[in-house]
């Protein structure tokens, strides 16, 4: 046999081995990852649940695993999320008219391209005739593309004229505290509600989300809604730090509403529950100073000055208060 024959033979033999390899290959796909990549994180800018590191995305990822373990198919898992968060949660284009067009577009363009290319082939020599120069065909191509682009641009302009919120120069999602800001209170409340009763989300995790929501109400001055959230937190197995935060802020709300005695009690409880709550200690100082009880505030102020978690720019105020308290 010639060398060439041996080569063909070897190729055939190796191809058989390769085919065996392809047949026995198991697709090691991770279905949870596949689903997580197809769902967008509700609080992020265009990131999938798989890519995002926000708390909500993490717990959604856990939820995907639970559903799959419970026997849901990938499709059913996606539908579960779609039912709770709406169709915009899905990152894959929906299969409406536009979506189907989108998926088939590569094939359509490829087919069109093949037809154009096949016409490029030189006809049999005898048939070559001088083609008269013609404007029509390619002019139409140019005009057609221009028209399509113009329509597209008009839409883009339309969407551009509805401005989005100004953000920092880079609006990516890299840490949870920042991206939570881009989510409306309603969405956050809905998200929390969707996790209630979920065995995979611990009460403490839920409390974390509730405190984030309450903080917004608190900072916006909506004390009623904030108090509701804080009360829920206190009733659902909070960690000492969570309970302390809720108590401290409830104390401040009481104080603002003129109930100084109740406020003092709540703030005291907050500090008893978690001594590291600098915020509650600071609120208590303000309550005491307001009532001219400076001497009681002095040890609190000294503790605050020693507390590394207290922002540095508060230091001058604290020192001034300490002066006043001692006087």
């Amino acid at each position, binding site marked *: 046999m010639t060398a060439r024959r041996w080569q063909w033979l070897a190729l055939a033999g190796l191809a058989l081995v*390769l085919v065996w390899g392809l047949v026995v*290959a198991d697709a090691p796909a991770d279905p949870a990852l596949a689903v997580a990549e197809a769902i967008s994180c509700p609080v992020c*800018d265009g990131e999938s649940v798989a890519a995002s590191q926000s708390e909500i995305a993490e717990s959604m990822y856990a939820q995907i695993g639970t559903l799959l373990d419970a026997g849901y198919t990938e499709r059913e898992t996606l539908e579960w999320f779609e039912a709770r968060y709406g169709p915009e949660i899905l990152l894959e284009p929906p299969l409406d008219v*536009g979506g189907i067009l989108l998926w088939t577009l590569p094939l359509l363009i490829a087919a069109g391209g093949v037809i154009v290319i096949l016409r490029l082939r030189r006809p049999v020599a005898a048939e070559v005739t001088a083609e008269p120069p013609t404007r029509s065909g390619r002019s139409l*191509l*140019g005009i057609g593309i*221009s028209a399509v682009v113009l329509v597209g*641009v008009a839409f883009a302009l339309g969407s551009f004229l509805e401005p989005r919120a100004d953000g920092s120069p880079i609006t990516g999602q*890299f*840490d949870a505290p920042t991206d939570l800001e881009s989510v409306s209170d309603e969405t956050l409340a809905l998200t929390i509600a969707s996790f209630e009763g979920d065995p995979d989300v611990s009460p403490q995790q839920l409390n974390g989300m509730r405190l984030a929501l309450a903080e917004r109400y608190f900072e916006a001055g909506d004390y009623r809604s904030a108090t509701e959230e804080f009360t829920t937190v206190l009733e659902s197995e909070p960690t000492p730090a969570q309970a302390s935060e809720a108590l401290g802020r409830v104390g401040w709300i009481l104080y603002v509403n003129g109930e100084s005695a109740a406020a003092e009690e709540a703030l005291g409880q907050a500090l008893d529950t978690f001594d590291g709550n600098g915020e509650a200690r600071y609120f208590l100082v303000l309550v005491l100073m307001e009532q001219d009880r400076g001497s009681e505030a002095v040890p609190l102020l000294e503790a605050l000055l020693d507390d590394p978690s207290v922002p540095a720019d508060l230091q001058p105020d604290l020192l001034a208060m300490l002066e006043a308290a001692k006087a």
Partner: protein
Amino acid sequence: MIAVLGTVAVLVALAGAIWLAVAGLSAVSGRTVPSLRTPAGLLFGGSVAGMGLLEVGLLTDDFSIAYIANHSSTSTPLLFKFASAWGALEGSILLWGLVLGLLAWLLQRRVGEGDRLGTVALGVIGVVSVFFFGMMASVANPFEVCTSAGTVGCLESSAWPFAGSAAPGEGRGPNPLLQNHILMAIHPPMLYLGYVGLTAPFAFAISALLLAQPGAAWAARTRRWTLAAWAFLTVGILLGGWWSYEVLGWGGYWGWDPVENASFLPWLTATAFLHSVVVQLRRGVLQSWNFVLVIATFALTIFGTFLTRSGSITSVHSFTQSAVGPLLLGFFVLVVVAGLGLFASRAHLMAERPRVESFASREGAILLNNLLMTVWTATVLVGTVYPILVEALTGSTIGIGAGFFEATSGPIALVLLLAIGVGQVTPWKASNRDVMIERLLVPALIAVAAGALAAILGLRDRAALVVLVLAVFAATPPIVLLVRQAAARPESLGSGMRLLVMNDRGYWGGMLSHLGVAVLALGIAGSAGMAIHADDITLPIDEPVPVAGHVIEYQSGFTDTDDQRRVVGANIEVTRSSATVGTARPALQDYGTQVIATPGVLTGPVRDVFIVLRSIDSAQVVVDVSVFPLQWMVWVGGFLVAAGGAWSFTARRSRREVAA
């Protein structure tokens, strides 16, 4: 002072651009235009002075200039002060203008009197420059002076350079993400060299259309410009991916983010153009197609810039919304409509004979390449703008995630690999069976053997097996061809190969790029297709924990504080099969406004171990661990692709091209 001089520099460059545009374009009517040295010099000189002044201001912390007050600070490290010049909108447009000025200056030296094609092309570059320097003189002025200072940064500013009366004591500093890694200082200039370099073939194409000279001269004269720009664009995209991998800690390098797509789109059309222009130069075919490609490529660079700057998409790359958005969109429309309109009005001049004799030929393979590249471009483009269109039409927000792009790009890329394998050694004009068997049998044998061996050794990932076979098949034919041709020469094998590669740099540069594509494909198949992720792993201190085929141990923490940030990180020792892999140092970098989880990456010849810190205290850390097989192949493959472009660039123009 800097504001006054800077404004003057921008205006000088603008004047040079207007002069260049008017004088250059006047050659269309047949007027003989004297040398364009002076206007090109004004344009280049003005842009150099502008960038130089901005750098001086940045390095001397001149916060009376609003841009500097808002994007730099006294405590910013020197390198990132320097890089802040293109870290935000106005400065990045100034950088764009600087590269345009450089391009005009370099081109001008090759354009003599009576060279109408070159003169009009310079005029086109003048028009593009008028647009960019016009933006700097109006809505994106990098030299606006601060008129109302905040404690930190500037609150209000004015374009009138003598209006300045306020300078804040401290600047806001660059975005934390941009002062994290040296790559962020290099990635944007590389991209811009690529984007702006693609203006050269566009300008010559428009010039050829305006002058009704649809021959191949424009393509021949800009081939090396296109190669250089394409290589820079490749490096720019690659560095962006690398930075994302090393800094962002989301565990990847490419997320099909709209702005990543926006840089990929012109790369695809430019790659198609690099191939199809060879067909035109050698066989006289695809004349009109090349015009369409080059106009599309330039338009897509502007479109990409619009996407980044307009705020019409949400992306990690978005700059704050500003008035440059509508301007860029308008310029994009102008480029597309005027470019294609001009093309349509000249289309009847373009002869399409001689046509392709046989599809079983190099030109047939390149047609397949162009078809695939076009389909790929259209798919990515539509996938990118579809959510914008749907939102504009129906008001509902939808997202298109990586799933769509991966599902469509995967098959296209596989067919491309096959086409590379066959096409690069197919003869021009027409091929025959014996030649193809001669050139492809051994590569096919090697490729199938590699696949079979991998299967026997236990590779059980179907997609990875397919990619492996196709990638080896794409990489080997040129090597086999090189060895055979060198063996047929009188010199020794080594020096024969060297001579071949040195003498036909255009061809062998292309082969090097193809090799790079094959390596890149393997890297992607490994790092993306076979990655292992393990999230939320708790590591008590000094306690080895098995995870993802490794044993990792939290040994100690470290902290580091400077003016900008507080870094808290962990030393995590990684071992595999009781051999030490290394110590990963993932960290949380707290910039006050933002916390960045910088991953600890241990790169190895077989796999990368990638650890992201989620939380840390003295008793334990929580980490996400990922294992990315063959990750280094992504970087090496990408750089080989660019290196091939650079090698082709060093080729002297062949006689054939000069004659054309």
